[in-house]
């Protein structure tokens, strides 16, 4: 194929050479086609014999054209004759060419146009090419037009008729330089003899004007920039210019809609145009190629070039778990938690109660739309899987009931107070303190309404009411059975009262009165300065005596509490603001007082005597100090595990004590091991006070939330055994008043009765 192709190419080349350009050739062809109609009769006359001739002629023509070319180069403007000959020759070759091209076409449509026609056509072509050139020059130099004519009639064969683009420059003797370089000279280049070529005359503007008027061809005269001559355009030229300006093909006879002829078809001709035999070269294998192949083969043999074989597939499945080898895994693998499974809520047709209000379920499956967040949820899961930090969390799979400790039934731990028995009404204000007579018959209560009332426990009657001059802060019965004496604390005073009633034992009352009738003899006892300034004992006045007062002790600051020793002779008073004299010890029988401590360590909140031993418990805000009174030494200092102690209660056994605090907690201490108290979180508000029962294993605590909790608190002789504490009853009854509710709690000395005094001015008995 290649051979044939080559041949075609060469013939084209030849054509180009002959006809001065391929373009023209094309045009000719087209034109001839246009003329087909006229020259139909002659069309089919071309024989195949001619083809052979043509092929023979080709070589000759080639030579001729070469000659012509060489001649052309030498030609000057004047040598027209020779050119004419050349032209004739050219014409001949053209005719032959035409035949050749015609035979090139496989269609077999032939036409042989006349020579005349051809010549005219050729002229057209030439004009066209010139005109285009002129057009350009015209646009460039419209300003300096000259009227000078250049007689170039279309009839006279032009010397430049067959010029190729290379030959054009021959007319321009100055070469391809700007024309303005010659502006100062009268000439414009040189001719072959070396003489000046004088510029055509150029008139001034007046001449120009005259020229315009006089010269009928003024409009079609154009200045040729390259030669410096004026050129008159013919009608055909003008026509072409017009066509070009209107963006048409310059050739007027050009048919835009002519059928397309594929001259250079890719199809290989069965019968090649030229009968030339293939060259030897085309048969002999290329040595270069052979060398290249040998080189590659060598490289492949050596393994320098590797051709990839069949590519492996990315996914190929087989029995992956066939062997039992174990690969290394990541450290401490934690499988991701599974997605939660849906409940009834997510059903497309759930029970109606699961749907939001006024929503109806889908009537049937076909109505269910696609879920629009599906991809998003999938994506979120993916994100979670790779970016969410994982952690093992213990999930408790228990109900709250499993956590509640199993306690013995309260019924098995009876007796304890379970219900409200009596309500002692009569006071008009907050009852700060209550106390029960050691024999369990009378109840004394001190209130903010400045009275002290004595109640009979069995009936709940108020036996007597004493008006005291100030709000009563504390009341405490003397524990001795021989005296019938009540200690009362008001402001700075401590008053001892004999609240005799018609129910009291007359003998005891008399005895009491007798005891306090006279002041005991002090002898040579000299009161120390510290004590004298703090305390003064005095006998009550006659009025006061009639009221029942037996002794009045004035303190230097307000007193908070009075605590009796179990024998009833000694008592202690607490003065919170008393600094180093905040705890005072008194002896009733000898009217003497003592200041036991030189220093005060914190605000003293409460004081308590040990039930059996001569120990004193002093509770400051957050500490408890136990003193041995006999040896006058500190015995123990206990950190109370409490921010603000409100009261202290000591177990009748003496080994345990209970501390209530304003931070809502009760602390049960063991004397032997005070580091870790049992913390009882019964209450949600400040615990006001706590109290042990003297006989039963019971204790009670009262808090500001209004609850009194009675607990069973068994203590064992075995030291290793922890006390057995069970809350058994919750008592509610008192009403809240100004944020206060239950203020004092006391147990009956031998019955399991509980007495509580409240801010609602009542005392309640629980049994």
């Amino acid at each position: 194929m290649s051979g044939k192709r080559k041949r075609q190419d060469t013939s084209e080349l030849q054509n180009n050479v002959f006809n001065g350009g391929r373009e023209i050739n094309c045009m000719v062809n087209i034109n001839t086609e246009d003329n087909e109609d006229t020259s139909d009769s002659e069309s089919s006359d071309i024989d195949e014999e001619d083809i052979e001739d043509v092929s023979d002629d080709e070589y000759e023509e080639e030579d001729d054209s070469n000659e012509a070319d060489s001649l052309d180069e030498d030609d000057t403007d004047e040598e027209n004759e020779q050119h004419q000959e050349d032209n004739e020759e050219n014409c001949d070759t053209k005719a032959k060419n035409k035949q050749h091209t015609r035979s090139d076409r496989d269609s077999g449509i032939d036409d042989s146009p006349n020579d005349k026609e051809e010549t005219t056509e050729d002229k057209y072509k030439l004009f066209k090419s010139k005109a285009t050139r002129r057009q350009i020059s015209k646009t460039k130099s419209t300003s300096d037009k000259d009227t000078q004519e250049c007689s170039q009639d279309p009839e006279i064969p032009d010397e430049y008729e067959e010029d190729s683009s290379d030959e054009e420059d021959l007319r321009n003797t100055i070469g391809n330089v700007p024309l303005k370089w010659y502006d100062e000279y009268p000439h414009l280049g040189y001719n072959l003899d070396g003489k000046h070529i004088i510029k055509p005359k150029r008139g001034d503007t007046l001449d120009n004007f005259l020229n315009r008027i006089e010269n009928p061809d003024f409009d079609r005269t154009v200045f040729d920039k390259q030669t410096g001559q004026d050129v008159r355009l013919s009608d055909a030229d003008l026509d072409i210019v017009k066509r070009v300006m209107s963006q048409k093909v310059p050739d007027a006879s050009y048919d835009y809609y002519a059928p397309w002829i594929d001259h250079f078809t890719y199809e290989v001709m069965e019968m090649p145009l030229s009968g030339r035999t293939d060259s030897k070269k085309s048969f002999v294998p290329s040595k270069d190629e052979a060398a290249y192949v040998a080189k590659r083969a060598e490289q492949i043999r050596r393994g320098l070039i590797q051709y990839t074989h069949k590519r492996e597939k990315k996914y190929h499945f087989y029995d992956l778990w066939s062997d039992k080898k174990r690969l290394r895994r990541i450290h401490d693998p934690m499988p991701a938690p599974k997605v939660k499974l849906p409940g009834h809520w997510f059903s497309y047709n759930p029970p109606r109660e699961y749907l939001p209000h006024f929503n109806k379920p889908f009537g049937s499956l076909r109505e269910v739309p696609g879920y629009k967040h599906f991809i998003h949820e999938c994506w979120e899961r993916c994100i979670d899987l790779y970016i969410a930090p994982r952690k093992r969390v213990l999930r408790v799979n228990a109900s709250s009931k499993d956590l509640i400790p199993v306690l013995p039934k309260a019924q098995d731990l009876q007796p304890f107070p379970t219900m409200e028995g009596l309500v002692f009404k009569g006071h008009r204000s907050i009852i700060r303190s209550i106390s029960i007579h050691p024999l369990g018959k009378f109840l004394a209560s001190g209130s903010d309404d400045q009275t002290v009332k004595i109640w009979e426990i069995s009936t709940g009657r108020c036996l007597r009411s004493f008006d005291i001059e100030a709000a009563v802060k504390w009341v405490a019965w003397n524990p001795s059975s021989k005296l019938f004496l009540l200690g009362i604390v008001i402001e700075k005073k401590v008053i001892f009262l004999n609240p005799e009633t018609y129910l009291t034992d007359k003998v005891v009352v008399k005895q009491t009165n007798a005891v306090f009738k006279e002041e005991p003899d002090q002898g040579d006892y000299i009161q120390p300065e510290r004590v004298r300034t703090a305390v003064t004992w005095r006998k009550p006045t006659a009025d006061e005596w009639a009221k029942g007062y037996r002794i009045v002790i004035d303190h230097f600051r307000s007193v908070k509490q009075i605590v009796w020793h179990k024998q009833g002779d000694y008592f202690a008073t607490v003065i919170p603001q008393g600094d180093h004299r905040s705890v005072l010890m008194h002896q009733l029988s000898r009217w003497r007082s003592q200041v036991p401590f030189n220093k005060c360590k914190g605000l003293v909140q409460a004081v308590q005597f040990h039930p059996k031993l001569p120990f004193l418990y002093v509770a400051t805000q957050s500490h408890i100090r136990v003193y041995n009174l006999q040896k006058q030494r500190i015995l123990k200092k206990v950190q109370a595990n409490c921010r603000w102690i409100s009261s202290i209660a000591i177990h009748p056994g003496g080994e345990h004590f209970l501390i209530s605090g304003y931070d809502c907690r009760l602390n049960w201490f063991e004397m032997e091991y005070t580091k870790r108290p049992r913390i009882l979180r019964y209450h949600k508000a400040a615990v006001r006070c706590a109290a042990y029962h003297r006989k039963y294993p019971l204790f009670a605590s009262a808090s500001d939330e209004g609850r009194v909790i009675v607990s069973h608190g068994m203590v064992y002789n075995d030291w290793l055994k922890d006390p057995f504490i069970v809350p058994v009853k919750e008592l509610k009854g008192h009403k809240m008043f100004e944020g206060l509710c239950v203020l004092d709690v006391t147990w009956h000395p031998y019955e399991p009765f509980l007495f509580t005094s409240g801010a609602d001015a009542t005392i309640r008995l629980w049994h």
Partner: protein
Amino acid sequence: TRDGLLLLLLLLLLCFSTKMAGIKKKKGEAGEVKKYITRNAAVKKLQLSLRDFRRICILKGIYPREPRHRKRVQKGDSKIKTLYFLKDIQFLLHEPIIWNFREHRAFMRKMRKAWSRNDKQKSRKLCTQKPFYKLDHIVRERYPTFVNALRDLDDPLTLCFLFSKLPAIHRTPLATIEMCRRLTIEFMHYVIEANALRKVFISIKGYYYQVEIMGQLITWIAPHPFAPRNDTHIDFKIMKIFAEFYITLLGFVNFRLYHSLNIHYPPKLQDMVKSKGKKNRNEIISEHVASLNAPLLRNKVDDDDEEDGIDTHLLDEDTDQLQAAREEALKKKKQQCLFKGLKFFLNRETNLESLTFVIRACQGQVSWDESTAEGSTYPVTDESITHEIVDRPQKTQKYLSRYYIQPQWVYDCINARILLPVQEYFPGVTLPAHLSPFTLETATTTALYVPPEKKKLEALQKGDLPLDQLQDVEDSEDEDSEDEEIKESETTVEENKDKKCDVELEEIEEVKEAVQNPSIEKMAVHEGSEVIVKKSEKNRREKEETRLSVMMIPRKQKRLYRILRTKERKEAEKVVRLTNKRKIIDEKEKQKKKKSRTIENSQKRSVVKI
């Protein structure tokens, strides 16, 4: 010797000096700190880009860990950083895939160069040499045993089912989607062949399927049969990486599963498929496979029945448990051949894939109209069809020999493990609620809300309610219920009265006895009367007791107790809310029915009059 002495002295001095200085412990050199590494440090250590790090983490299944003391681990910084185990990162250092990443990077560089030079020949040549990696060893590494892989199959299946429904666009390439489609279909085929389906649930999100394979419960969601809405803000790159791994995993799992049943893998059909029309034979086969409606070719058929599969040696001691396990196994077997002998025909507008899968997994036969999809086995005209599944109610029901039912019946039957009465599922009828099979509550539980439908279902399962007469019973109930209610209220009042009277009488008697007692002189043992404690009193006492014992909970457990308590309270509130709501809804419906009935009656009357 002198030198030796000197040396000794020097050593001693050194020792002393170190002792004097004391060994200081530096922060961040020992303990928990050494266990963790931040993400940035890990990326630096592995010399990877962040994108590649993410890819390797996803493929290798490495995830950040929550340290016990974050501040300590981050050397005093309390900002939240992503922390990995250092050991995991060190483990990654030896991963061969990282080399593939690097190769890929080099390849991309070459490719870019070729593109920029417009060297098409080179880029074409490079394309053939594109590096890729295989994930086989990673699958093996992450799942040392096959059961491990099964246990973790939920997410892969869900993602693959999603991908199989996605459109093939640039973000989701066709190859991945086709692979996902293929693997999901294969998996469903296995489930059909093994009869492993346990639970199905149609939710608003999609179809939940639960399958039991080798004792592992696997649940996945298949989206509703619409093209999922493609959100543009979602980064599909991550999902693609996951899909890549999941495809590999699922392929190996499928292979193994198929071979456990002696089925040919990749699946082949038992019967030869007739090729109709001009379609390619392979295409037709793949379509038939995708229709899920053809049995697969097995290598050999083994007839020996499997045993119960209960580990009796573990349950020997506990006979109750053994009994329960046996019952469960029996139920499962029943479920496996629930639709055996039934012939279904799926009408248009039903979800072919889901229904075929579900019915065939319970040994039913399915077909559909030939024109709707490939793989139908018998036409509508077949007289032996027992159930025709219709979603849109049709006016003409041609065949008397079959039931026309809605698709929900199939799903409900599988969950209930019995064939439910079809009356409630006729086309056009308001369907009974579709309940989730995944909830824990049973009719006896009190802590959770049990919808009445569930109670009814359980009664059906037990056989308390006859299957056939259900409808009638309900109707009669409806009619009678009003009267009954009135009666009930009356009776309750009476009962209350009686009770009160009894209590009062007894009290009076007691008092009388007490009065009379002193008059009785002889000691005697009398027949005691039962002490009646009022319910409210009892409740009150119980409450108080619990309140007191709650006080004794140790502080360490108190918080937990409170949490549990609030949870329980919320649950209880929910139960109350739902029961109340249900009550209201039921009443409304009853009233509606009444109205309609009265209208009907009046119409009838008017007709009669006319």
